């Protein structure tokens, strides 16, 4: 399999059922991928499998062509949502521990990153750092592995706006310098628009959308028209209706029919349209 991260027929079954099922995709090298989906869609399970921490029930995963099997691939770094760190260690001791646990490691890189981040004091205990500073430390440690593929599970969730900006800048600089492929899950769509160029939208463990964001947006149209007219040609993703007006998110619309207005969606309305469709299926 080609691509920085790819999988085929990938699935994971927990006791409560399938978290990920029949997933196949190939993420091109050097892309910054937005992994998006409703809560419980399987985002964290997918990232966990890509990181080699969760064993797939079926199917297979590859990183730059080499299979991922029961261990973290040497080219992958993973920021878990739980941010696993030693609370009683100082930041320095935590870095030392990470160095001991990794074959490929750069102290220089970690120090360089922490120097850029205002909120992380190297002498402080990890447990005394703010949630945001702990996230930043965990990202610095992930980058210390000099990864080719960086997996970030909700990297921005507990960051204030300044720390969020610092962190995005850091990750984007990493992409500019080293051509790292990044996969990040987030609920904050507004933040993803500026930094991601590839969309991987999953729902109920299945891939719904996979592609270059510009291309994906160009394939979709938001059509607004009278509620009582027949639906335009194309694939309907989701719709909201009032007594007199219908607003449709369509894929592969050939032409905008008379009496309808069509615009290209922005990322936020596209994702919202798919999430709304997902909720409809669940109810």
């Amino acid at each position: 399999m080609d691509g920085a991260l790819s999988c085929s027929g990938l699935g994971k079954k927990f006791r409560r059922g399938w978290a990920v099922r029949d997933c196949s995709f190939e993420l091109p090298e050097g892309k910054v991928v937005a992994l998006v989906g409703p809560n419980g869609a399987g985002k964290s399970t997918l990232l966990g499998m890509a990181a080699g921490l969760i064993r797939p029930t079926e199917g297979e995963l590859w990183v730059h062509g080499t299979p991922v099997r029961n261990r973290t691939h040497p080219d992958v770094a993973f920021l878990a949502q739980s941010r696993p760190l030693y609370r009683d260690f100082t930041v320095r001791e935590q870095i030392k521990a990470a160095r001991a646990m990794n074959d490929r490691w750069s102290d220089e890189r970690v120090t360089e990153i922490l120097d850029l981040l205002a909120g992380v004091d190297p002498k402080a205990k990890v447990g005394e750092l703010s949630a945001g500073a702990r996230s930043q430390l965990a990202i610095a440690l992930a980058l210390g592995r000099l990864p080719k593929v960086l997996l970030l599970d909700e990297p921005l969730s507990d960051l204030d706006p300044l720390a969020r900006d610092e962190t995005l800048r850091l990750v984007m600089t990493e992409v500019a310098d080293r051509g790292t492929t990044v996969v990040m899950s987030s609920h904050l769509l507004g933040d993803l628009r500026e930094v991601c160029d590839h969309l991987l939208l999953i729902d109920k463990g299945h891939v719904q959308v996979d592609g270059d964001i510009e291309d994906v947006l160009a394939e979709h149209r938001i059509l607004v028209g009278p509620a009582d007219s027949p639906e335009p040609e194309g694939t309907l993703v989701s719709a909201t209706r009032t007594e007199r007006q219908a607003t449709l998110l369509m894929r592969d619309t050939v032409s905008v029919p008379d009496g309808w207005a069509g615009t290209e969606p922005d990322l936020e309305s596209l994702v919202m349209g798919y999430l709304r469709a997902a909720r409809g299926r669940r109810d």
Partner: protein
Amino acid sequence: MLPDVIEFRIDRRSGVSTYMQIIQQAKQAMRLGLLNPGDRLPTAREVVEATAVNPNTVLKAYRELEREGLVEARRGLGTFVTKSLASEAGSDESPLRQELSAWMSKAVQGGLGVEDVDAMYAVVRQEQFGVEES
């Protein structure tokens, strides 16, 4: 010392994609004579450090400018402007500009507001150049 390049301002609320904003601002700088043949565009890293956008988007915008024949990527050196968009006709002292200035002061004397002037300008521009793709 400040870097000897232009800086892009990315407006996240504008609804215009980062990619388009970079292309438009580069062209604008060329029209204004802030970028002339031989000048270097900021590297993707410089843009990222200043604005926290995706470096791939910056490079994609530069490729489009290159496709339009305005810039040239030189391996290991950066992306350089190859064409001039600054025209004498658009400079401050040009007759056209002075005529426009005289016309606009007449409009002000005639009691027209900014919106009236903009609307009139848009209509006349459309008559001359056709409908513009937004």
